[in-house]
């Protein structure tokens, strides 16, 4: 997570531990740079949010994105989470709540 990486070392671990605790409770924290890192070719200042998002969405809908995102995910396998893996974790969490609720209803 980009935001955590910019913190002093001593704080990084405790913050990461804390974020992991919150995730277990359904509250996910993301650093703003994390999503933007998927779009290194979009040469628009992220402060210009509207234009940046329009470009990002256009790119996400292109076939080019799938290939790059797949490659990006494999490359960063050892470097912790990536936006796609991270969002996978969010969906995984929702899935487990859904399963628990189904079991409780049955």
């Amino acid at each position, binding site marked *: *997570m980009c*935001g*955590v990486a910019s*913190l*002093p070392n001593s*704080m990084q671990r*405790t*913050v990461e*531990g*804390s*974020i992991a*605790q*919150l995730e277990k*409770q*359904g*509250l*996910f*924290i*993301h*650093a*703003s740079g994390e*999503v933007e890192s*998927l779009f290194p070719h979009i040469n628009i200042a992220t402060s210009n*949010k509207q234009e*940046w*998002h329009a470009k*990002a*969405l256009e790119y*996400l*809908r292109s076939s080019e*994105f*799938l290939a790059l*995102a*797949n490659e990006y*995910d494999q490359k960063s396998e050892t470097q912790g989470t990536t*936006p*796609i*893996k991270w*969002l*996978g974790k*969010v*969906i*995984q*969490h*929702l*899935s487990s*709540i*859904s*399963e628990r*609720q189904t079991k409780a209803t049955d």
Partner: protein
Amino acid sequence: MRNKALGKEDVITGLFSRAVVITESFGDCSIFREIALHVSNLSNDVYPLTGTDVYFIDGQSKDSGVQYAKFFRSVNLPVVAILDFDALKQSSLIRKYLAALGTTQESESFMQVSSELGAYIRSMQEIIKPVHESIEKVATEFEKMTLQVKALSPHFLHQSQRSHSNTNSPEMMIKSRNMLQTSSRISKKLYLEDLLSSCVE
């Protein structure tokens, strides 16, 4: 639906989906939604839910997101929230979210981290403040200079137009025609003189 802060369309669409994710802004919401559609395609893990089963809501702010979380939890729909990193320094907000998401356990270690993080961010802001002030000063000076250049440009434009129109005035044209005629007469005279002298020789 009594709570006017909640968007009616979001609530209805959320109710017809299998799970809900609350985000802070429209940008986050649309990008996460799009990436989620790819999650099941890209990951080797098999999820009971896919990106299309999940509805992403633009909570419009950190505070109103809490209301959405409360509502969807009350109707037993799986719900999570995604917040920006800066939310970590607001321990009261995190408490509200945890309560809305149905978590009863109070995390002491988190509250400790939150206060440490808040102190760290404040100390960084103290360091950044003078740099930020210098940048603002330079920006103000630059803006002043730009305005001065803009104010001067019509004057330069007028001068240049005037000098251009001077060369095209009728007086100037007559003068230059006269000069041409004189030079032509001189050259003719010189030519004749040359010819005559060559004949004499």
